C-alpha cells in the first residue's frame, strides 16, 4: 500500500506542474481534477470503482447539507430582521455557529417514540423521505459539465422521484398514531398530489422549446450562441444572460407557476398546511423529536433546494451568468468565473424570496389550497403551454404581443372566475 500512495502523490505533483502552466479554461479546474482522479481510480480495481462512484455523490450531499446549515442561519437572521429584532447573534460571530448548535441540540435530545405508535412506520418515515430529497439533487447541472448524472430523461426522473415524498409524509402521519398528525398526513397527501400537476405542466413548456429533457442540454440552450462566441466581452456577458427562458413571455409565466407550485411541493409558507403549527400543532412531525426531527428538517430543506435548483436550470439558466471568456485562453467555450458561483447565487436569491414570503404571508385553508391548484394554477399552466406552442411558430414581432396579450387576459379571466360572491365585497363601515 505504501508504494501506491507515494506513486499517487508523485503523480499529483507531475499533473499540477503540467496543467497550471496553461490554465486555458479556469472554470474547469474541478472537472480536470475529477477526470484525472477517475483515471487514477480506474487502475485500483473494485476499490477504485466504489471510490469513483462516491466521488460523484458524496460532494453533492456534503455541499447541499452545508447549504442547508447556511439557510437555517439565513432564515432565522432574515425573519429576525423582518420582525425588527436581531437574529441569532450569541453563538459565534453574527450567530454563524447557530446551525451547529441546533445540530448538536437535536443529537442530544431524547428521541421519544409514542407508546402506541407502530415502531416500524415511525422509524422508516424519515429514512424514506431522505431518498427523494437526495436523489433529486443528482440531476442539477451545478457548473459547466459538473453534474452528477446527466441522463436523458433527467427532468422526468426528478418529478417521478418527487412523488415519493407524499408517501413518506403520510407514513409519518399514520405511524405516530396521533390525531393531529393523521390530519396532517391527509392534508400532505392531498396537497402534494394535487400540486404535481401544475409543477409538471409548467416545466413541460421548457422541454417543448429545448427539445430534450436532459438538464445540461436545457442549460446550454439558454445561451445566445452567436453572441457568446463573438469576441466583444460585453456581447459575451449579455449572451449568457439574455438567453435565459425567464426573459420570454411564456418563460416568465412558466417561472412564476413553477415557483408557486415549488412553494407548495416543499411545504413552504403560504402552503405549509401539513405542519400548520397554529391548527394541528406540527402536523405529521408532532410525534418526532431528536435526530429524526432533524432528518425530516434536513430532507425538507434539501427537497426545497432540489426544486429551486430545477427552477434555476429550467428558467434562470442554471450556471449561465454574466462572465466573459478569459483573454489568454484559446478554448472558445472557456469561462472566467466558474459556473457554480452563479448557480448557488441564484439558489440563495430564490431561497431569500421564500424566506421573505414566509415572513409575510398567512396560510391558506385546505379547500382554498385545492381550489388554488386546480382552478388557478392548472388552467394557467395549460394556457401557457398553448401560448408557448404558438409563440414557437410565430415571428418574434407577432409572437411577443400575442403571448403577452393572451397571458394577461387569461390571468384576469381566471382571477375573476375565482372571485366568489361574498368574499372580498369591499366592506363599508358606517360610523354611528
Amino acid at each position: 500500500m505504501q508504494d501506491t500512495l507515494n506513486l499517487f502523490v508523485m503523480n499529483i505533483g507531475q499533473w499540477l506542474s503540467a496543467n497550471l502552466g496553461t490554465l486555458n479554461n479556469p472554470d474547469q479546474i474541478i472537472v480536470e481534477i475529477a477526470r484525472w482522479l477517475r483515471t487514477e481510480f480506474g487502475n485500483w480495481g473494485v476499490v477504485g470503482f466504489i471510490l469513483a462512484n462516491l466521488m460523484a455523490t458524496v460532494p453533492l450531499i456534503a455541499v447541499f447539507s452545508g447549504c442547508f446549515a447556511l439557510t437555517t442561519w439565513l432564515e432565522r437572521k432574515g425573519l429576525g430582521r423582518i420582525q425588527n429584532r436581531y437574529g441569532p447573534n450569541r453563538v459565534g460571530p453574527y450567530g454563524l455557529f447557530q446551525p451547529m448548535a441546533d445540530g448538536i441540540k437535536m443529537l442530544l435530545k431524547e428521541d421519544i417514540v409514542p407508546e402506541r405508535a407502530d415502531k416500524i412506520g415511525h422509524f422508516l418515515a424519515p429514512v424514506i423521505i431522505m431518498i427523494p430529497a437526495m436523489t433529486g439533487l443528482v440531476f442539477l447541472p451545478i457548473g459547466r459539465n459538473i453534474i452528477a448524472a446527466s441522463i436523458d430523461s433527467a427532468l422526468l426522473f426528478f418529478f417521478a422521484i418527487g412523488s415519493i415524498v407524499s408517501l413518506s409524509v403520510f407514513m409519518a402521519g399514520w405511524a405516530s398514531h396521533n390525531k393531529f398528525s393523521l390530519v396532517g398526513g391527509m392534508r400532505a397527501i392531498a396537497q402534494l398530489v394535487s400540486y404535481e400537476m401544475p409543477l409538471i405542466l409548467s416545466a413541460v413548456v421548457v422541454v417543448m422549446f429545448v427539445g430534450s429533457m436532459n438538464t445540461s442540454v436545457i442549460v446550454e440552450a439558454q445561451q445566445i450562441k452567436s453572441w457568446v462566441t463573438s469576441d466583444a466581452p460585453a456581447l459575451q456577458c449579455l449572451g449568457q444572460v439574455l438567453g435565459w427562458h425567464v426573459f420570454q413571455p411564456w418563460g416568465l409565466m412558466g417561472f412564476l407557476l413553477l415557483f408557486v407550485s415549488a412553494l407548495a411541493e416543499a411545504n413552504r409558507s403560504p402552503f405549509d398546511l401539513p405542519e400548520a403549527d397554529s391548527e394541528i400543532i406540527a402536523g405529521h412531525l408532532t410525534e418526532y423529536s431528536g435526530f429524526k426531527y432533524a432528518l425530516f428538517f434536513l430532507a425538507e430543506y434539501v427537497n426545497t433546494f432540489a426544486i429551486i435548483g430545477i427552477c434555476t436550470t429550467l428558467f434562470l439558466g442554471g450556471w449561465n451568468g454574466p462572465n466573459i471568456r478569459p483573454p489568454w485562453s484559446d478554448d472558445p467555450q472557456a469561462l472566467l468565473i466558474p459556473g457554480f458561483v452563479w448557480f448557488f447565487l441564484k439558489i440563495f436569491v430564490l431561497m431569500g424570496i421564500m424566506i421573505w414570503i414566509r415572513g409575510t404571508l398567512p396560510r391558506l385553508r385546505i379547500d382554498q389550497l385545492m381550489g388554488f391548484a386546480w382552478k388557478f394554477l392548472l388552467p394557467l399552466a395549460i394556457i401557457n403551454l398553448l401560448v408557448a406552442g404558438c409563440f414557437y411558430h410565430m415571428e418574434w414581432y407577432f409572437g411577443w404581443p400575442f403571448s403577452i396579450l393572451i397571458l394577461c387576459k387569461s390571468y384576469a379571466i381566471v382571477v375573476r372566475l375565482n372571485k366568489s360572491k361574498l368574499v372580498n365585497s369591499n366592506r363599508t363601515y358606517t360610523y354611528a
Partner: protein
Amino acid sequence: MNTSTGYAPRNYKIVKHKDKTLLEVAMGPHHPSTHGVFRMDVKLDGETIIDLIPYFGYLHRNHEKLAEDMTYFSTMPYTDRLDYLCSMTNNWAYALTVEKLANISVPERAEYIRVIIGELTRLVNHMLLVGFYINDLGAIGTPLLYALREREKILDLFEWASGARMMCNYLRFGGIREDVSDEWLASCNKLVDAFPYFLDEYDQLLTGNEIVISRSQGVGVLSKELAINAGITGPMLRASGVNYDLRKTDSYSIYDRFNFRVPLGQFGDCYDRFMLRLLEMRESITILKQALRDIPKGEIQSKVPPVLKPKPGEAYGRIESPKGELGFYLVSDGSVNPYRYRVRPPSLINLTLLRDLCIGHKLADTIIIFGSIDIVLGEVDR
C-alpha cells in the same frame, strides 16, 4: 398491566354519525393557539366541524369568593389579574363601582388621566388581538411582533406612571395613586402623534392581503339578532352592525366631552371583527389627542377614609372595556368587606357563542373564530 396487544388499539371512540365515521379531537388545554388554558372537544368529519364542546375553568382562581373577606382596598391589585392584558380598565371599573357605592366624587384631573390611561389600554388590547389573530392565520409572528414593538412604547408609559408594566394597580377610589409628570404627558403626546403611521403600515400589510381576505371573510358570521339575544357586547357586537357603545350610551366619567365616532360592521364575520379593532384604534387616538390637549391642573384624589366602610346597599358599575361591557356588582353590608362581589366578564359571555359560530366550518376556521372573539382566560375563569 400493559394493555397494548401488539397492534395499536384505538384509544379514541369512533362515533357513528348517520353513515360517516367521525374523528373526535380534543383541541386540548395544551394547544398552541388557545390564548391560554382552554379546551375544545371537536367532532370532525374529514375537516369540517360537526360538534364543538368548549371546556374552560382551568384558570379559575376563586377571585370573587376571595374578595368577600378582603377589604375593598386590598382587592384592587387582584382586579389587575382579571383581564391581564388591560389591567387599568379593570381597576377603573372596580373604582367606578365603589365610588357609586360610597358616592365618592372624582376630581377633574383624575378623570382626564383615567380616560387617557383607558384609551391607551384599549390601543394595547386591540393591537395584541390583531397581532395574535394574524398569527393564528399563519403568518409566523411578523404582524404580532410589529404590534408588540408598538405595545412596548405604551407599556413604558405605564411603567413610568404606575411603576409596573402590566399589573399597574394605579387607580384608587376617588382618583389615582400618583400624579403624572409633564414629561410623561409630552412623551404620551409624541406617541399618539406617531401611532397613525404604525396603523397605516398595518393596513397596508394586512387589510388588502388576499389570503387574509379569503380566509376570514364569510367565516363565523354572527347575525344581529343572535348577538343581541346572546348578550354579546363590545367590538364583536358592533361588528354585526348593532350600535351599542357604553362610552356613548352611558357616557360615564367625562366621555361626553370628547367627540369621537363608533365604527359599525356590516356582515359580522371574522374580517369585520378584525377590521373593527383597527378602526377603533384610530378613534381612540382622536380621544387621546383631545384629552391630552385640555387636561387641567389640580389634585388627583378626593378625600377618602383609609378604611372604607360604605353604608349597606348595592351598586353595579360598568365601563366599555376593550373586550366589551365589563361590570362589577357590589353588595355591602356596612362592614369593611363586601358582602357580595361579582364581575360581569365580557370574554366569557362572548365565548358562549363559540359553538354556534364554528359548526359547519373547517378545523382551521375554529382557531380563527376563537381568535376573533378576543378571549383572555383570566377574565373567562376569574
